Every structure is written in structure tokens, then in C-alpha cells.
């Protein structure tokens, strides 16, 4: 409209004026020329507009007066608003993707043809699927565990599908599928390695306990059947059987005692009370107990060259006693056992050295596991419950002490409990304890 007012009307007026002054031919010519000029100017503006709209970001809107200027102004304003909105959405998408990558569970979206659409970072660790590399790939071609394809075909399956990670086989993942929208499926992978390890440990533990309790029970019930038969048995035989039975029940009792001790130790984080333990006296007691267990078959020595130790006397006695009785049980008659308490550098070290059978290196890391036996037959003969070292380890952990084992097959073993320095200084306990001087 404005174009007509500002350009066309003056030209028409000029043409009319020329017609009046000269003749109509001149008038037409002037009008035509004028309109032609207008058309050329507008075409050029249009061309530069087209050039600008191709890439509005790079250059500013060219300066124009009139309606062109207005168009440029409006358009660039709208473009700016849109660009800002787009940046905002992109930033949000980025933060969403970051959040998804931070999720510890693997997430994969597959479409109706089982082609991978999207995956987060954990999916790469769990299943080896990484986008964009694997975008569009068919998921069964990448996750090839037998049975997975069938599982994917049955959405509604309540139990998860278990796979060993293709990337690192040591880990186990539970896969679940969740329908997503009309045709897509969301695949969630969860790392269940630790949960399964705990599960296995628990079931082995239960199996071990049952086995250990069953063995003496079988013996006892066998003898009891004999007793029921009566008659044929001499008094001497009867007494011998009773003796064996009481031995087996003692074994069961000590096993149950050890189990109770262990569960108590596990239930609480720290000993109920701590005191200054007189190591001279404790070692003398250990020596006496050791000698009565050995019945004179071993040479046992004790030497105490360290200060008093801060801790729970009953627990320490139990831990050290276990180490001493182990040494006696695994040392053939005539062997030598040395019990020592001394300072080594900053640490207080309690050690039991024997000249016994020794332990092969491959067993050392597993020695403190419950019911772990180096030699299945022998240890039960000697009356162990299989829980002694587990108890020792727990007690030492509660005293922030470390258990070190040196051993050579045929030469003997040394078990060392190393206590931190602050447990050796009576003046300087780490926390205020009202029962300091016990």
C-alpha cells in the first residue's frame, strides 16, 4: 500500500504533468521509465533479501528504509526468538542426555524391528551397545546370548533375563524389557554381579553349616541305633560308644558356639568395652592353655616385650587363643611353637610361629573364609570347626588390626596380628572412653 503512495503515485503525477506540458507520448514514456526504475529497485532489494534469508545468522539485516526495513526488522526479531528457543531446547536435551548417561543402569530403546534407536553410556559397558556406532543395528545380532531372542519376543515375561557381559565376562547383568509407546521397547540392564555373589556365598554358607552339623549327628544317631538293639553289647563297648558320642556332641557344641560368636561379632561394629589389657598376664594364660591342649607333645615358648594393649580382653583372648590352638593342631608332636608380643616400629605385633605342616601359597588368600579347608580330611580330625580364622579376622578388624600370614609348606607358618600404634599408648586414646582403666 505504501509502495503505491510513495512510488507509483508520484510517477503517475509526473507522467500526467508531462502529458499536460508536452504530449501524451512523452507522458507515457516518463511513466514507463519511472515504473521501470521502481521495478528494478524492488527486484534488487528482493535479491538481497533472498541472499540474506539464506543465512540470516551470518550478517546483520541490511539497512533499509520503508517497508523493506520493516520486513527485515520483523523477520530478524522472529529469527532471534526462535534461535533462543532452539538453544534452550538443545541445552535441555543435552542435560537430559547427560543425566541418562549418568544412570548406572543400561538403557536401550529398540523399535518394532528390534533395531537400536538409542542407548545410554551404561548400555555400552553392560551390553557393548554404543550409539551412534550401533544405531539401527538389530539388537539380537549384538546380544547373542542364547535365549535372549526368545526373551525379547515375549514382552510380559516377569522374571529378568540373565546375561554375562560381552565386554567383561566377570560381570552378570539382569535384563528387563518394558514396552515403550506403541511399537518401541525399552531394555533395562541391571548389574547384579554383587547381589549374585552374596547369594552364592549365603547358600554355600548354609550348605557348609548343614554339612558340618550333619557329620557328627550321623555318628551319634548310628550309635543310638546300636543302643536300641541292646543285648549284644558289652559294658566296655557301651562305654566306648558313649565316649565317642560325647566327643561328637562336643564338636557340635563348639561349632554352634563359634557360629554364635561369629554372628555376634558381625552384628556389632565395635567391642562393647575396651580396657588396658595386661599382655604379660594374657600371654601367660595363653601359654598355660596351649600346654594343656598340647599335653606335652610340643615345646611352647612365650615372650612378652611390648606394652599393654588397648582392647576388649575377652575378644583378644579368643582371637589369640584361636591362633595358638591352630598352631598346636597343625604341628606334629615334637614341634616348636613360639608366642610373641613385641613392638615393631610403630606397630604392636602379636605373633604365633610354629614348625608345623605349613600352608601352600594358593590357600593363603582364602584362609579366613568360613569353612575353607586346606585339607578336608585332616582339619576335622584335629577338631577344628572351620570358623576359627574367620572369628580371628573379625575380632582383629574390630581392633583395627591386620592379620598377616607367612607360610611355607613343610617349614611352618607364622600368623601375625599387627595393632596400630594408638592402641599401645595408654595416655592418648583416640576417643574419650569412661572405662579407660579397666
Amino acid at each position: 500500500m505504501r509502495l503505491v503512495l510513495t512510488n507509483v503515485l508520484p510517477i503517475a503525477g509526473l507522467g500526467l504533468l508531462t502529458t499536460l506540458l508536452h504530449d501524451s507520448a512523452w507522458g507515457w514514456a516518463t511513466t514507463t521509465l519511472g515504473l521501470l526504475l521502481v521495478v528494478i529497485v524492488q527486484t534488487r532489494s528482493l535479491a538481497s533479501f533472498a541472499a540474506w534469508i539464506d543465512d540470516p545468522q551470518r550478517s546483520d539485516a541490511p539497512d533499509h528504509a520503508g517497508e523493506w526495513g520493516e520486513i527485515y526488522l520483523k523477520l530478524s526479531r522472529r529469527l532471534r526468538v526462535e534461535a533462543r528457543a532452539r538453544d534452550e531446547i538443545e541445552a535441555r536435551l543435552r542435560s537430559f542426555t547427560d543425566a541418562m548417561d549418568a544412570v548406572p543402569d543400561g538403557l536401550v530403546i529398540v523399535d518394532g524391528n528390534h533395531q537400536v534407536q538409542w542407548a545410554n553410556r551404561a548400555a555400552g559397558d553392560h551390553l557393548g551397545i554404543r550409539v551412534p556406532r550401533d544405531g539401527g543395528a538389530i539388537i539380537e545380532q549384538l546380544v547373542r546370548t542364547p535365549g535372549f531372542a526368545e526373551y525379547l519376543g515375549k514382552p510380559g515375561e516377569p522374571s529378568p533375563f540373565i546375561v554375562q557381559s560381552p565386554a567383561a565376562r566377570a560381570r552378570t547383568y539382569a535384563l528387563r524389557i518394558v514396552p515403550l509407546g506403541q511399537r518401541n521397547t525399552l531394555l533395562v540392564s541391571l548389574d547384579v554381579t554383587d547381589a549374585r555373589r552374596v547369594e552364592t556365598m549365603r547358600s554355600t554358607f548354609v550348605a557348609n553349616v548343614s554339612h558340618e552339623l550333619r557329620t557328627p549327628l550321623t555318628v551319634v544317631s548310628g550309635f543310638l541305633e546300636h543302643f536300641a538293639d541292646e543285648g549284644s553289647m558289652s559294658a566296655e563297648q557301651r562305654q566306648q560308644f558313649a565316649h565317642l558320642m560325647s566327643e561328637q556332641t562336643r564338636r557340635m557344641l563348639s561349632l554352634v558356639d563359634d557360629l554364635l560368636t561369629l554372628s555376634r561379632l558381625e552384628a556389632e561394629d565395635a567391642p562393647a568395652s575396651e580396657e588396658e589389657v595386661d599382655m604379660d598376664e594374657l600371654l601367660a594364660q595363653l601359654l598355660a592353655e596351649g600346654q594343656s591342649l598340647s599335653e606335652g607333645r610340643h615345646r611352647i615358648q612365650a615372650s612378652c616385650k611390648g606394652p599393654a594393649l588397648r582392647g576388649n580382653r575377652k575378644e583378644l583372648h579368643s582371637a589369640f587363643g584361636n591362633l595358638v590352638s591352630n598352631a598346636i593342631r597343625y604341628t606334629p608332636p615334637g614341634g616348636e611353637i613360639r608366642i610373641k608380643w613385641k613392638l615393631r616400629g610403630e606397630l604392636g605385633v602379636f605373633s604365633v610361629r610354629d614348625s608345623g605342616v605349613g600352608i601352600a601359597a594358593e590357600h593363603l588368600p582364602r584362609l579366613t573364609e568360613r569353612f575353607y579347608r586346606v585339607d578336608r580330611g585332616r582339619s576335622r580330625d584335629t577338631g577344628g570347626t572351620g570358623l576359627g580364622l574367620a572369628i580371628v579376622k573379625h575380632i582383629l578388624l574390630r581392633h583395627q588390626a591386620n592379620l598377616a600370614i607367612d607360610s611355607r609348606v613343610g617349614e611352618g607358618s607364622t600368623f601375625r596380628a599387627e595393632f596400630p600404634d594408638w592402641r599401645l599408648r595408654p595416655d592418648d586414646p583416640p576417643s574419650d572412653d569412661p572405662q579407660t582403666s579397666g
Partner: protein
Amino acid sequence: MNDHLSKQFDLELENIRTRILQMGGLVERQVLAAVDAFSTGNLEEMQQVIDNDREVDAHEVGIDEDCTLLIARRQPTARDLRLVMAISRIVTDLERIGDKASKIARMSKKLHQAGGQRIPRLSDVHHCGRLANDMLQGSLDSLARMDVDAARQVIGADKAIDAAFNAILRQLITYMMEDPRTISEALDIIWIAKAIERVGDHATNIAENVIYVVGGVDIRHSAPAASKADGA
């Protein structure tokens, strides 16, 4: 060929690829289970591997038939034809690997039943088995992704297995020289190690086929450029 037909064709081709990779997954598990059973002496697992071999064979027959049908009905050309050809070759390799797995399981069973372990179950054999399985997995991944670089890596890894095999051989020879009573046991272990080493070779074949599909270059029986540089 109109659009609908070509789409149908792509689908069939993808299906064959999925099937062979599924078969690969089964074979992968067979190898791993056989090697694990050898180390742990788990008789049940050995029997499982031996029984599952029939399933592997069934896969082979099915995939072969699919390939023949696809060639007859669709007359694929260029890359598609190469893919079908390669798949029918890979099937044979996978089936052989399956045979090796069941052979390992059968040998382990025999060893176990003979009793009397004079030679400790060498952890080297287990390690070698893991290496072979990694190669197999790598070759199948390269087939799934049509990834030439991954395929070349698999081919390069074969050397490590050969080295591990030679190490086992040397070790067993030492045992046999020290005590002739170990010979029969050692021979069985050698068969097992050899089977594992062959798994690696078949995995190499699979990787070579992947390179053939993608590039159209047949690199069988020719030393790849990478290993030429090593002086092999």
C-alpha cells in the same frame, strides 16, 4: 526391482544375518562352557556341551537352506551376494567350532573319568580358551557391525593364541620327560589345546569373510598388510 520387493529382500537378508549371529552366540557359549568345564572338572557341564552340539548342527542345516533359497529366489548381486556367500562359509566355520567345543568336553570327560591327575589342570589352557573365545566374539561382533577394523584386530590376535599353544606344548613336554606315566594324560591335554587353537583359526576365517563382504577383497591365504610389516 520395485521398492516393496527390495524391502522384503533386505528383511530376508537381515534375518539370515540374525540367525547366523544367534548360532554364533550359541557356539560362543559352548566354547566357554567347555573350557570352564575342563578347568573345574564339572561333568554335568561337559555332558551339556556334548548334548548341545546337536542344536548347533541343526542351526547349520537351517541357515544353509535359507542361503540357498535366497539365492534361488532373489538372485542377489554385488555386496548382497558376497554377504550370502560369506554367510554360507561362516556357517561351516561356526559348525566346526561347535565340534571343537564338544571335542574339548568329550576329552575333558575322558580325562576326568580316567581319574589320577598327575598333571595339574593347567591354567594356561583356560587362558588360551579365553583368548580363543574373545577372538570368536570379536569376529562375530565385526560381522554384526560390518566393521573391517575389528575384523583385522581379530586376525592379528591369532598370533597370541599360537604362542599360548606353543607354551602349553613345551610345558607338557617337560611333564612327559620327567615322568613317562603322565604321557597319556598329557596327550589328551594336547588334543584339547589343539582344539582351542583351531577355534582361533576358525574365528580368523570368519573375520576374513567379513573383510571380503565389506571390501570385496578376498584376503584368504595372503598375509594382510599389517602382518607383512611385522615381517611375518
